[in-house]
């Protein structure tokens, strides 16, 4: 087990800076979105308290709401912000592309795989580190939000376990992104191609999802296909904290796609040739 833990230790050492900075950014964003939610709610309360019951109802209808939403739902609408998704996607793409392609490109894979380390162990340490990072980053966002909720006024107090569901959904969103990037990396000789393909697929999925939710495009039939091909449809933090009906299904599909790609990566990596660098 010593080689396995030596590799894990190295991955932690190599990524700790990026991971801590990314986690700090998400922690700050979590806190910031609570602060913004608190300001919004204060404004809404100010408006609603100055209106009659009829006007209050009309005002809410104009906002597209039946009743004033719970604080956590307002806050969760910010959790789909591109900044949050970008941090998760960057981590997933970076870790996926470095696992094999980058190591072959810089020639350091020889150093490791000429020692008695199986290819399966080697890749497994990378996968474990990447998955740990995804959950750690999602946790940082949830912790930031919970601590932010402690220091800011919210109409409805937020429990940490309520935040755990969308955080889990966010971490799961990173799995397919990591998976398909790793798959490209596992069969390639360079890092840039895995990074590029991972980024293009992620961006395309995100654009497809954004286009599919534009209200004026709802009448077009092709919109449904755009929605179906995007993994971002499966990340729905507002739903996670309200009904939560689709959470398990979303988690299962995201984890399934991720696991499938990771499994294919293993199969490809243990069979492939590792030629000399340069």
């Amino acid at each position, binding site marked *: 087990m*010593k*080689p396995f*833990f*030596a*590799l894990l230790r*190295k991955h932690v050492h*190599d990524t700790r800076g990026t991971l801590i900075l990314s986690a700090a950014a998400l922690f700050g964003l979590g806190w910031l979105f609570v602060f913004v939610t608190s300001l919004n709610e204060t404004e809404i309360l100010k408006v609603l308290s100055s209106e009659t019951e009829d006007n209050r109802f009309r005002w809410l209808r104009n906002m597209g709401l039946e009743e004033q939403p719970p604080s956590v739902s307002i806050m969760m609408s910010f959790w789909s912000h591109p900044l949050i998704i970008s941090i998760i996607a960057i981590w997933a793409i970076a870790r996926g592309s470095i696992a094999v392609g980058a190591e072959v490109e*810089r*020639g*350091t894979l*020889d*150093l*490791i*795989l*000429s*020692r*008695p*380390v*199986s290819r399966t162990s080697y890749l497994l340490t990378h996968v474990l580190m990447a998955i740990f990072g995804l959950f750690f980053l999602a946790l940082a966002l949830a912790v930031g939000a919970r601590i932010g909720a402690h220091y800011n006024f919210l109409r409805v107090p937020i429990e940490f376990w309520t935040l755990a569901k969308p955080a889990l959904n966010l971490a799961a969103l990173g799995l397919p992104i990591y998976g398909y990037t790793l798959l490209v990396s596992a069969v390639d000789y360079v890092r840039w191609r895995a990074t590029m393909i991972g980024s293009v697929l992620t961006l395309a999925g995100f654009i497809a999802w954004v286009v599919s939710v534009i209200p004026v495009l709802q009448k077009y039939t092709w919109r449904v296909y755009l929605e179906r091909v995007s993994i971002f449809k499966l990340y729905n933090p507002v739903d996670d904290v309200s009904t939560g009906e689709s959470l398990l299904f979303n988690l299962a599909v995201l984890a399934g796609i991720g696991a499938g790609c990771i499994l294919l990566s293993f199969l490809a990596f243990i*069979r*492939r*040739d*590792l*030629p*000399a*660098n*340069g």
Partner: protein
Amino acid sequence: MRSTAVLATRELTKAYGDFLALRQFSLEVRQGKVFGLLGPNGSGKTTTLRLLLGLLHPTSGQATIFGLDCWRQSLQVRRLVSYLPGELRMYDSMSGLALLRFLSDLREGDGLDRAVALAEQVMQLNLRKKVRAYSTGMKQKLALALAFSDPVDVLILDEPTSALDPSARGDVLRLVREARSLGQTVIFSGHVLSEVEAVSDRVAILRRGRLMHIEDMHARRSLRMLLIKFAGKGPAEFPAELELTVRERSDQTLLLEHRGQIGPLLHWLDTMPILDLAIGTEDLHSLYDRFHGPDAIDEETVMSS
């Protein structure tokens, strides 16, 4: 007593599409021997070594180390083998000591103390410095310290002296001899013929992925070259017990190889009508040039002979 074959390849072939990087390569290396691999870039040396380590999948044929299949039982093979890559790349952000410790941990931590001692005392490296601050030669020394410290039976060294200064080259050759004396088997690939000649027990010469020739260096060291000018035409045949081979022949002059006892040869020379005679040795370079020099032997001719 003959030592057992540690490493064996049978018809080992590696193809990349239509390109054959290694063709039907068969050899055996016995325990406690130093085996040299010679050939220009692209001749298949590194491909052979990577096939032995299970880094490449053979297209056909098989390579075994201690009877273990180098591809299917690669992990077990790598427990017995230490490898120095030809194009050495390291994790630059680590210190020399951290890198030694990390790579040693990948072998359950065995050999770290010896690697540190070798790196500091023999290779004169400052292990507290980051690897990025090391020159290419220093990185090579660090990798060599590790390779020679690994508790393994087989050392595979791909151009181990390529980036080293002359004194460090001497250290490496000394370490190779030391490894042999400890019973380790060494596969030594290189371009500096004098170094390969100095330490190898046997040498294989490769060309375009094909094994052209295997030379027993002990026999070669007893080789004499005779340039004889006869009075008249030289003899067409020689007594078999003299172990003479004709290398070149012109009207009166013959260039002969002699690997046998000196006494019978001198006696035979005394009986012949000789006008002039020169006796010398032949270095590995001359042999190498037969396959890679300007007048190189055509491989198809050699293979069919």
